[in-house]
């Protein structure tokens, strides 16, 4: 029987190893799998390469993971936001690496990784500093940059609804990078607000087919990142 349901966040992240590449969903506070990230902090895996659009806010979630010195490198498009304190400081001290990728290129590289496409061409970043050192090529008279697919060992993703096959539904703009990260990771680990019976999700509306998901864990009332930041909370609590 196929049962991808893990009992706890701790159990879901138990296989993550030192040096792993981990994709983490979310765009700002929407879709960030805070409970899974906190479980990863408790777990303690180190020297991680993290692929995520931002670098986390305040001292919780991804920011706390970075603050806990578990991340050696970030691959992201926008490492500083209003509430990002931790990453900028470590970056200035030379204690964390950064690979800066335009947001659409990041999304497409992740999808490519998941779709078995090792490299593709994009017009994005042509003639800018972010294209330096990259192969460029003309198609139909227009220049393009070659970019590589990204794969990961794990993905940590937040969604709304899941079943034991790993079929997923998302909530509004919290969908963002979740679906493509599930595709690109060997083991996609997903926290869902609810896990429902097989057959409860209409086959026409599944956003992420179960084939892309390794584990799901029910986190009934996920914390609000905004709320935690307003309260100036830190993890570990």
């Amino acid at each position, binding site marked *: 029987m196929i049962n991808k349901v893990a009992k706890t966040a701790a159990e879901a992240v138990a296989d993550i190893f030192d040096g792993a590449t981990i994709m983490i969903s979310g*765009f700002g*506070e*929407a879709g960030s799998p805070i409970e899974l990230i906190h479980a990863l902090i408790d777990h303690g895996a180190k020297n991680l390469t993290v692929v995520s659009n931002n670098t986390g806010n305040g001292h919780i979630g991804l920011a706390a993971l970075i603050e806990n010195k578990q991340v050696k490198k970030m691959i992201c498009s926008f*490492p500083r936001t209003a509430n990002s304190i931790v990453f900028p400081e470590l970056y200035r001290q030379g204690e964390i690496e950064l690979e*800066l990728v335009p947001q659409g290129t990041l999304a*497409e590289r992740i999808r490519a990784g998941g779709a078995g496409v090792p490299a593709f061409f994009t017009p994005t970043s042509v*003639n800018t500093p972010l294209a330096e050192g990259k192969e460029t090529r003309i198609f139909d008279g227009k220049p393009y940059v070659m970019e590589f697919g990204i794969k990961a060992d794990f993905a940590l993703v937040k969604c709304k609804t899941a079943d034991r096959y790993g079929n997923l539904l998302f909530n*509004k703009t919290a969908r963002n*990078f979740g679906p493509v990260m599930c595709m690109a990771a060997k083991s996609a680990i997903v926290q869902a607000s609810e896990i429902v019976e097989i057959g409860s999700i209409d086959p026409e509306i599944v956003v992420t087919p179960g084939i892309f998901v390794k584990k799901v864990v029910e986190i009934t009332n996920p914390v609000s990142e905004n709320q935690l930041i307003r309260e100036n909370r830190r993890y570990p609590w």
Partner: protein
Amino acid sequence: MVAEIKGWNREQMAQKIAGDIPDGAYVNLGIGLPELVANYIPEGREVIFHTENGLLGVGPSPAKEDEDDELINAGKKPVTAIKGACFFHHADSFAMIRGGHIDICVLGAFQVSENGDLANWSTGEPGAIPAVGGAMDLVEGVKTIIIFTQHTTKNGEPKIVKECTYPLTGKGVVSHIYTDYAVIDVTDNGMFVREMAPGIDFEFLKSCTEAELKQY
């Protein structure tokens, strides 16, 4: 620090841009000032706003009590979704951008050069944390790039320049510039002033613009 008030204010600039967006256009509004444009779409026009974090059909800001952490725009501000909206993932969202499906994008600028180069993501200062977001994708993918900016910096330095000194976002990508002083079209034959704000004349405009300006 605020100089003598002249030219258009932000709301007037936003209104001017909104007035030039045709019925039925798909429009992406950059973070900050450009967001104002949504408030001034003329009555009777239907314009669909795209936000790159996965929503087509962005509606007005919600009342405080209706804010939803999981319904935000690219600036991470709470928004609403109109009837007929749809949600999608990031790769699909940027397929819309890169694939040329968005008609218009309104962005801010540090600098725009005479041939339409745009610098709006980095001042290149040493020690600054580089962050690019979706700016480079938008300028390469969207058909028409409109810049919404003050004509000069806070210190009065030209933002419309011969050559950008800041790192580029994209080369030759800007079509129109709406500033507090003027509306400028960027063409293959150079920059043409389409309209000037009340109280601004061409000589004054040239004096605070480094790039060469032409008149139609």
